[in-house]
């Protein structure tokens, strides 16, 4: 049954035509075409081997697949095909299957002999074109095999290529000494099938860091794409500088890498932000984003993702963790290599950007409230300035604040713990959840949240709390129609439950009650994760709070 369905898939004519067209892949066009088709060809060869496994002898195989001899023969003479990944393995396995142990007729005898000469061509230490036995004799006299010889030979070739590329920095005036762009191009296309060969890593690094004199790209795009693909699949590992260079010079690769990261993150079950941070760090994007060009592209993609998912909380969390890691990586940079802040957010109010870039760890906890008040005031001025704000600008400003969500979480915390300037902080939170104010939504939200806040502050130091005490607040949350109000008030309430003296007593029931009746479970879960991550990172939080946090999270992971 399976054989019937696989046979039509084996499109021999197509591949034979391709093989004839490619020849030995000596021209640039044929090389590019081969590189394009290498993965499908490998797939085809695997399928062919699976089909051939049950076939006995070459005559039977030829009867089933008359073109097989021509095809395999031609492919064996194409170094791009043999050099790629696992194609050579599949090809040799197919040849093995065709070999007959008891040749019945001259055809089979001839086929056997032909197979052996192909294998000799692939595995002996004679040159690719000629069958000279010179080197063979020398090596076998020394007691080595062709495996040893080619191991050394490839390493030496790579060494000399690397030396050539490194020693000749491009010097526009000294054309004689510098490496020509066409040579670098030729080298790069020949490397495409060999990317996963471990010997090649030094050459890959050198090529990626090798720039031409002209602004035009000297590496061929197939090479850059292939390196990016292989890197994203974690089949090779490259140093940060090489990956950064790759993304800087080939923006499709950067876009692919960012989208790949997003795919990875939304598909894994988020149990803790450490995992998220780990995955993001491994992708090398935060480190690479120290380059403003890369940062802006990544930012755009994240922004679009947020828009497309209508502000899903998972995406928000991802953006916030990414920004934190980016700031960390930037902090570790050498002072001389740092780009000015303006380069990252050129179109925004720079004092605001500067204020947001300050990390909470850089300031003493006592000055957090003041800092947040500054941010809030600046924002207010920006947003309420009717001359400036259009909808797009508003969105951009809101997005900027969202990236640095760490500060917003701290604002909510500070509101309850150290209420110095509650109005400003409340405004900040209200803006975050409800940026628009055309129909006075935000003003309305402010009023409601103020009431809840006052209520909560009265209960903050109460040691014996019961659910009934919080009933008014809970009622309000459940009663509002607007979801942004719900989210805002839930945020405050959750913080209250975590940080107040008596909150731990009713925390579980309260949160359960709220999330059952409203649509806020994702946001609450997100908030808890972020708070846990923040505590771990900054070493904050007393034991009781941490314990409570962990319990709540456990409950959530069981449910979600």
């Amino acid at each position, binding site marked *: 049954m399976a054989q019937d369905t696989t046979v039509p898939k084996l499109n021999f004519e197509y591949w034979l035509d391709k093989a004839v067209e490619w020849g030995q892949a000596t021209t640039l066009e044929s090389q590019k075409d081969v590189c394009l088709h290498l993965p499908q060809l490998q797939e085809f060869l695997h399928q062919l081997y699976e089909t051939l496994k049950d076939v006995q002898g070459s005559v039977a195989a030829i009867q089933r697949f008359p073109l097989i001899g021509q095809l395999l023969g031609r492919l064996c003479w194409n*170094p*791009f095909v*043999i*050099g790629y990944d696992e194609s*050579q*393995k599949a090809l*040799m396995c197919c*040849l*093995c299957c065709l*070999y*007959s*142990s*008891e040749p019945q007729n001259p055809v089979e005898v001839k086929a*056997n002999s032909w197979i*052996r000469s192909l*294998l*000799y061509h*692939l*595995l*002996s230490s004679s040159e*690719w074109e000629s069958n000279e036995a*010179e*080197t063979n*004799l*020398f*090596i*076998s*006299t*020394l*007691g*080595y*095999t*062709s*495996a*040893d*010889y*080619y*191991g*050394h*030979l*490839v*390493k*030496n*070739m*790579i*060494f*000399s*290529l690397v*030396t*050539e590329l490194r020693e000749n920095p491009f010097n526009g005036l000294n054309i004689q000494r510098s490496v020509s762009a066409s*040579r670098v191009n*030729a*080298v790069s296309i*020949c*490397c495409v*099938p*060999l990317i996963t*060969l471990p*010997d*090649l890593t030094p050459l890959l690094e050198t090529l990626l860091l090798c720039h031409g004199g002209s602004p035009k790209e000297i590496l061929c795009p197939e090479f850059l794409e292939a390196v990016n693909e292989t890197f994203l699949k974690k089949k090779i590992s490259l140093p940060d500088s090489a990956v950064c260079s790759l993304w800087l010079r080939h923006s499709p690769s950067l876009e692919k890498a960012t989208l790949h990261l997003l795919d990875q993150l939304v598909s894994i079950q988020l149990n803790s932000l450490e995992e998220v941070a780990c995955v993001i760090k491994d992708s090398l994007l935060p480190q690479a984003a120290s380059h403003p060009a890369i940062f802006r592209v990544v930012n755009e993609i994240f922004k679009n993702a947020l828009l497309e998912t209508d502000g899903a909380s998972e995406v928000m969390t991802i953006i916030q963790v990414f920004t934190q890691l980016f700031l960390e990586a930037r902090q570790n940079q050498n002072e001389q290599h740092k780009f000015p802040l303006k380069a990252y957010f050129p179109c925004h109010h720079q004092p605001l950007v500067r204020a947001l870039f300050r990390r909470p760890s850089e300031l003493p906890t006592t000055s957090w409230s003041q800092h947040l008040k500054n941010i809030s005031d600046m924002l207010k001025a920006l947003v309420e300035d009717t001359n400036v704000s259009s909808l797009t600008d508003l969105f951009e400003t809101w997005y900027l604040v969202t990236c640095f969500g760490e500060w917003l979480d701290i604002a909510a915390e500070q509101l309850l713990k150290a209420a110095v300037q509650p109005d400003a902080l409340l405004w900040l939170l209200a803006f975050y959840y409800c940026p628009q104010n055309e129909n006075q939504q935000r003003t309305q939200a402010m009023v409601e949240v103020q009431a809840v806040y006052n209520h909560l502050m009265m209960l903050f130091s109460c040691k014996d709390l019961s659910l009934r005490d919080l009933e008014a607040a809970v009622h309000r949350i459940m009663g509002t129609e607007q979801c942004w109000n719900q989210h805002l008030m839930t945020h405050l309430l959750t913080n209250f439950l975590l940080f107040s003296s008596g909150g731990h007593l009713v925390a579980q029931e309260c949160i359960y009650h709220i999330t059952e009746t409203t649509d806020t479970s994702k946001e609450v879960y997100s908030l808890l994760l972020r708070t846990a991550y923040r505590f771990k990172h900054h070493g904050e939080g007393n034991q009781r709070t941490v314990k409570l946090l962990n319990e709540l999270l456990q409950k959530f992971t069981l449910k979600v």
Partner: protein
Amino acid sequence: MAHKFRVFTMNKPLDNECGKPVPSTQFEAAKQILLQLKSECQCQKYRLSYISLNGDVNQRSCSPTALKSPLGQGSVDMGQGLSTFLRCKYRPRASRIGPRGGAGRRSKRGRQGGAMAAVLGRVAELPALLALCRSALVRHWDAPALDRALEWARYFQHVHDRFRARPQLREALGRRLRRAQPCSPPLGFSALGRCPELLGLALLENRALPPAACRRLLRRLLLPPGAGTGPEPRGLALLARRKAAARLLALPRRPGGTEPRVRAEAQLLLGRLREEEAQEGAGAAGRARGLCGVLERLPPPRAFAVVAAALALLGHGDGDRDGSGPDGNRASAAGDGCVAGLLLSWLLGNRERFSAFCLCLPGSLLASLAGHYSQLSRSYLDLLTGWGSHLHYDPLQGRWVKSCPEKAELPWEELRERFSCLCQGSALLREQTQAALKLLKTRDGDFKVRGLSVWTDLLMEVEE
């Protein structure tokens, strides 16, 4: 217990019991037959080694050493690299080697000694086995015979891995291998580690292997292992991939610097020489010289390039030892010096060879080598002065010409280039060269005008 022996002799067909199984219930009877064979083959040079076909006989009667001694010295000489190889069903059990837990040091050593002797005996079979795999006699093989050959290969690799970290045992094995026949090519301890590839590839390239055995070979080498064991198919896939990579990366190079092929061959040569050098004991020098004979298997220009590359690598202290032992770099500098000395004595030992060497390599390479090796610089300078003294000035053409155009010597332009390369080298070399030229110029009469003494002219060109 029945002992079955089967005897194959390779060099010449015998018209007695050759090829027929010799059923014998007596070990003695079998021995008699073999003695008879030996006496008939007196004029031929044979070595007979035999292992019982029954797997369950005790080791003593299986060991080649044990069986050899009753026949006396009948097993000394080797033919042209072929030996007899008996079919054996004896599977070498790796657990026999190595120490076993037991009471008492002496008994343990006794057991170890016996086991070690057996290992040595088996290891001595490797050159013969390798030669056999390359010979036409494999045409008698069937699939099981091939399996056994590959299992022997695995066994040898296991021995190598087992003893790699024990220098004394390693040397003992290396010595035994060298004494084993056939002695060319001489194999070292490291060859044991490469056995599966050595034998596998040798068999693959052997056209005489019959189809059934060949199919078994292909399946074992290239197909992914199912449930059974076998040499790693990954190794050969990697080989094919690297060979294709060598083709892809073989873009036309610019002149200057060693060609990668030559460098690779030089590294292999150095690996072998270093291994030989690390072995102690007399005769090492002789064998290493024999290795230099290996160089004569390459056509001269290639051989010279390889030697030059090898000397350059040694001069630059290039590492790239292929795991030649855990001794570290303690003795490696001294060892390298000996290896360099070996290569130099091969080069300088023969005057024509050295002259051809200096003719075919470029001046810059020779100058850099001369900078590292003082014997080389001396001989090179002597050679150059010899060539220079054969030039005479042609007043009609206004330049220096060779006295006999056919002779393998350098013309004026190249000689000048050689000298200037030497003067661009290290300070010591420059001084040496200029001093030599000055001396010759003075001897010629210390002329300051061109056209009278070749040395004056050269010195003037070089000092510009």
